[in-house]
């Protein structure tokens, strides 16, 4: 992978790597992609994608509103300000 392509990929992952990590991970990534490329030689005929290993019937939920019992427990994980969750600047 070109450096430029790898950097764009990192940006899209929202990852920044320090120097030692960068070289090591980039080399690993290249090697692993090469390893993945072995599937090119295996045909899949008419098989359709298996999104799950077994068939799962879809079951809907009824539109009945219900309050979550521990909203306080949720917000204790966050930092809040005037009951809003604090987030980074936009």
């Amino acid at each position: 992978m070109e450096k430029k392509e790898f950097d764009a990929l990192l940006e899209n992952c929202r990852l920044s790597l320090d120097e030692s990590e960068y070289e090591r991970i980039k080399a690993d990534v290249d090697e692993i992609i090469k390893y993945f490329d072995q599937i090119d030689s295996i045909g899949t005929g008419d098989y359709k994608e298996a999104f799950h290993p077994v068939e799962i019937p879809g079951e809907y939920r009824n539109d009945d509103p219900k309050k979550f019992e521990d909203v306080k427990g949720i917000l204790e994980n966050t930092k809040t300000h005037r009951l809003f969750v604090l987030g980074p600047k936009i």
Partner: protein
Amino acid sequence: MKIGLEMHVALPTKSKLFCSCSTEQVEEPNVNICPICMGFPGSRPVLNAEAVRIAKAIATVLKCEVKDKISFIRKIYFYPDLPKSFQITQLSEAIGSKGSLAITDKDVGIRRIQIEEDPAKIVRQDNYSLIDFNRSGVPLVEIVTEPDIASEDELKEAVSTLRSVLYYIGVDVEQEVKTDLNISLGDERVEIKNVTGVRNLIYAAEYEIKRQGEIVQKGKQPEKETRSFDEQTRTTKSSRKKESEEEYGFIYEPDLTDYETSGLKVGEPIIPHEEAARISSEFGFSYKTVLELISFDRNSLSLLSKSAGKFDQKAVISTLEDLKKFDSTGIGQEGFEKLVRMSADGVTITQSIVSGIKSGREVTVKRATQDEIDAAITELLTKDRTLLEKYKENKNVVNFIVGQISRKYGLQPKDVLDRIKFIIQRMSDN
């Protein structure tokens, strides 16, 4: 000119799309939240049947091909209002595709109707942001049109037709509806992201058409880009780069499966402009008048359909128009017909008459005798001679005089109007 819309419409469900939190938008932030709509690790989505049912109704009324089985995908992007850093949405697996919306001169193609979750509400501050997750997870339908709209007028008509169609399946296009607008006057597509509200949508289009038009006139090409709309200045400007298709990295949503839609019942679709056309041709009413009356008024459509042909069309239309001025919810067919008869009889419909009919009371309007009416007119005009002078200068003043007399003496305006010219003539002659 090519214009296409991606309109994000909130669905009127009681609970959110993937969790049981209430969709009610309350003032206090972070009340209707749970681990699912906050994207907490360990939580997972469970699909709301009613949201899919309403989406199916929209797809049906917009004449889409409706999928028997739907599934969902993850669209990955990073923004503080998106709890999981991916939105659960649809593309090729969307509930509806290849539909159309008829406006006066053409059919605007509907590319896709997709179900997705709303992000949270974010309030920008100088050194941080404030996030309210009450809205996070509210079910949305994104209506994606083909770029078939070719003028500002067509845009206005398409939007109002769409709103009216949605109104008839119980979906109100709210003030805060968010739309992405694609406009190209040149070869490249310019996208204006996240325009809030219907009015702004038109302003954004107006500005953008003008801006691109000027570029084209100079023999240049507008650049392919994403722009944002500034509500204060009503202009658009080049904006932060959104993720590209490459970067969204869509995958199948593995916490959900495939869902059958055939068991979800949707009513017969009502398409208001088709109804207007039917009523106007069947009963000889004006199409435009009928459409205006029924566009956002179920009750009017029902009353009109059942009363047309039975009464004088003017009385029916004017009664409907009168009703719009008052709170007329709950006026049934029987009450309406009473009103039409009264109206035809020259009675002016008032709130107290409407309320009376609604409550089922017998409503009688006291009618004055001709002598009483004549006396009243004469009395007022004698007291205030300037009225007569004014009338002589401008005949339109008659309505004002009629209003005054009707109010003062509790008379029916029509009755006064019938006699006033005669009285004025008589007084002038004297």
